[in-house]
């Protein structure tokens, strides 16, 4: 039946492309999570009323985040070519997409982290202070655990945006389902290939959303 409906779809190519998309997504989500979390914490802690309140630090971080969030992703990839070449030694393939994906995703996630941390009950932070907590204890034992459901649902949203970015990166030769749909589907008028790639991307998105929701629900004891 597969041959009848999707005559141009080769199973082997699809598996390769799916693997490439999953590889790019997983690595970039991990990188985005770490860098975004650090930037988000920096934004929150240096902000007004934060533990490390500092106008200068807050301004620098906020500008950095805003600038990189403002650049359209396709342009960001092009701008980062020299950096990618220096870092990865190539500007083609899944690995070459990673710097752009992380630099594009982290500022977006940083803002979500900042929002999540702002939602933590100030009274709880005050209680921790009254017990004689160090700032690091407040960050690791109060702020992060208390905002964990929002941090996880935030990374889920970011991950799905990143799946979209991997497809865009495909258009300039990063590999993955986007690349395959564009070069083997669209350019050769094999619409069944485009269609199959779309279905696979939708399935990946659904799986990410499902896992994200499940983990969020499990963690939320409110």
């Amino acid at each position: 039946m597969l041959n009848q409906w999707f005559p141009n779809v080769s199973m082997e190519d699809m598996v390769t492309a799916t693997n490439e998309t999953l590889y790019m997504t997983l690595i970039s989500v991990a990188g985005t999570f770490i860098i975004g979390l650090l930037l988000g914490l920096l934004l929150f802690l240096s902000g007004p009323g934060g533990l490390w309140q500092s106008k200068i630090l807050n301004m620098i971080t906020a500008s950095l985040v805003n600038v990189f969030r403002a650049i359209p992703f396709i342009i960001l990839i092009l701008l980062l070519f020299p950096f990618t070449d220096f870092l990865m030694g190539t500007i083609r393939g899944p690995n070459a997409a990673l710097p752009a994906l992380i630099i594009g995703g982290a500022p977006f996630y940083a803002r979500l982290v900042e929002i999540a941390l702002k939602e933590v009950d100030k009274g709880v932070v005050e209680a921790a202070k009254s017990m004689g907590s160090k700032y690091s204890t407040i960050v690791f034992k109060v702020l992060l655990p208390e905002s964990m459901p929002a941090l996880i649902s935030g990374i889920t949203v970011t991950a799905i945006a990143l799946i979209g970015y991997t497809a865009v990166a495909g258009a300039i030769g990063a590999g993955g389902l986007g690349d395959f749909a564009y070069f083997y589907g669209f350019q050769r008028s094999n619409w069944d290939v485009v269609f199959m790639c779309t279905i696979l991307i939708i399935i990946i998105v659904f799986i990410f959303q499902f896992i994200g929701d499940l983990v969020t629900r499990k963690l939320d004891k409110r």
Partner: protein
Amino acid sequence: MITIKGLSKIFQTKDQEVRAVDDLSLDINKGEIYGVIGYSGAGKSTFIRLLNRLEDPTEGSIRIDDQDFTSLSKGKLRLARQEIGMIFQHFNLLWSRTVHDNIAFPLEIAGVPKAERRKRVDDLIELVGLKGRGGSYPSQLSGGQKQRVGIARALANNPKVLLCDEATSALDPETTDSILDLLVDINEKLGLTIVLITHEMHVIRKICHQVAVMEQGKIVEQGDVLDVFLHPQRQVTKKFVDQVMGDPEKETSMKLIKDNYQAGEIIRLHFVGESTNQALISEISRKFTLDVNILHGKITQTQKGAYGTMYVQFEGEQDEIERAIQYIRSTSVEVEVNPNA
């Protein structure tokens, strides 16, 4: 135990400066339950947060157990705070931790080893009456139970002082009473000094030994709870006393009483911190051949005994009435014959 001298806290807003706490001096003795009462905006919340330096004072000094709190460095302040427990109006528990882990949190901060932590937490859970709830999350508890967790958490590091920031204001009257009972129990068992702020005179009456009335950042009246109840000086204090006692002038119509009860004598009895003469009425009716008719009154219990006023009518031989009055005068109950008010 706690000595406060010339304490001030000034908040700078855009167009004016607000003196939330204004040149406040106070002594709190060891083992005492010290209540600070005031309406919202009186500065009592700022005051209690100055005690463990959640707010830094603008001026003045705080000494707790011979340690100058106001000059402590950040690191020393952290250690000193571990010896001061605090409970809050909205409990401020970590929702992500179980009851057990919430109580263990201050022990983690103090670096207590795990095995010891577990034992201490179990003891505390028992002390506050939450046995069997250690594995629950705060969202599964009622308000009163949450405050019990808050109290256990505040006691974890064996503090010298417990600060209560409107600890019962979010609870219903019955739960409030059970939490207050627990605080008295802890005060007696552990000899812990408790400083509490509240806007409910009921709380002061029920558990405090000493009270200070705050208005506009200043303490306008302070002393023994009973003295303040008995001789409120300021209007604001009278209002707070009326919260518990009702306004006697409004409620007692002497004219009505005198019109309705013309025989014998009308006597006003004033109970001030009585613990020995509480059976006075039955004693009089037993010792003297009199009919005692209770007309009006309200007696309430404080930490120092019963307090309140009662109007009674004595009916019988005039000599017998005189002798009964003489007898009451020999006790510590104050008596007034044929009162006007």
